[in-house]
């Protein structure tokens, strides 16, 4: 986003909300929308109704959590076990929100507003916000983020309902190819939004840690790989920084 500072200062709150809404036409949002085509297909395969699929999209919103929930429904997992698996996968929402809040909060932003907006935090909205917040005036950031994130969730909720009903039986290959949009999108957008070497190291360490974690702690591999890989990336970046400043 290239905005001159005077232009940014003049824009009203409504203007920022509308600008945020326009963000749903950005590549990350459009790509996520494509991934929801794949999700609608998965819901159909799982045998839930279109109302339940749309309800899940709006209420859970994070795509990995929904895929785990859908897997639990298909497998006939008991409610406590399903909730536990989803809680493990959604644990990453907390550090994401912690990282986002200082960017989002203005002097007058109230906590209830932030609690409401936090529901719409998932990887796409998080990456979008972390990339663009710097060019938004601090007192307009909540409006800008809300305009983008709430619209994105609403549109995809409707989309899941519509696609679910339109799609007869998408061939497995097409569903697979659509589903693979998600990892490629997450990988490239996280690489692009990494502020320094720490973010890139985290991306590679988290991925590299998954196969051993899968073998060491089946069922908890995401958590093990994420926390383990995250620590390794953080410590490596510190060592690199220390060496650079010493040289």
């Amino acid at each position, binding site marked *: 986003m290239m905005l001159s500072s005077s232009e940014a200062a003049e824009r009203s709150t409504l203007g920022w909300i509308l600008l945020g809404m326009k963000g749903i036409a950005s590549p990350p949002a459009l790509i996520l929308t494509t991934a929801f085509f794949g999700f609608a297909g998965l819901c159909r395969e799982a045998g839930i109704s279109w109302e339940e699929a749309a309800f899940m999209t709006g209420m859970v919103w994070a795509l990995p959590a929904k895929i785990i929930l859908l897997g639990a429904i298909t497998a006939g997992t008991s409610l406590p076990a399903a909730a536990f698996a989803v809680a493990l996968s959604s644990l990453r929402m907390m550090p994401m929100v912690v990282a986002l809040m200082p960017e989002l909060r203005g002097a007058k932003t109230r906590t209830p507003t932030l609690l409401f907006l936090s529901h719409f935090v998932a990887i796409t909205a998080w990456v979008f916000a972390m990339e663009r917040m710097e060019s938004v005036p601090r007192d307009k950031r909540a409006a800008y983020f809300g305009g983008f994130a709430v619209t994105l969730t609403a549109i995809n909720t409707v989309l899941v309902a519509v696609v679910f009903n339109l799609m007869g039986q998408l061939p497995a290959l097409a569903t697979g190819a659509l589903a*693979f949009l998600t990892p490629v999108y997450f990988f490239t957008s996280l690489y692009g939004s990494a502020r320094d070497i720490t973010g890139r190291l985290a991306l590679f360490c988290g*991925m590299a840690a998954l196969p051993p974690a899968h073998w060491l702690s089946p069922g908890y591999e995401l958590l093990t790989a994420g926390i383990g890989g995250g620590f390794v*990336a953080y410590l490596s970046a510190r060592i690199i920084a220390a060496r650079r400043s010493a040289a």
Partner: protein
Amino acid sequence: MADWTYSNVVPWWPYVFILLAGWLPTDIWRYLGVVSASRIDETSEAAKLARTIATALVAAVIAQLVFFPTGALADIPLPVRFGSLAAGFAAYQLSRRRILAGIIAAELVIGGWALVAILI
């Protein structure tokens, strides 16, 4: 419903199941993030560590989809999935970081494999 699994025998039960097994265990972390963030300085080492772990967790989800997928993705062989991600990243870098270029390159690899698989 007796064993607390998903079923649609009772019309409202699927929604309660989705709320308790999906919404609650996801939003609780978001709310905890909001509540605890006010006590954390964005530039502090703790915030940096939180950001790094968040990124690594998403990276783990990516690796999960590439290395150990379920459903329709599992029908695509591992070398094709890995090659697709690698081609996507290469195209992304070569195109001066256009995510769309990366996506198209990755999908071309899967499409190419599908074409070969159908022909053989």
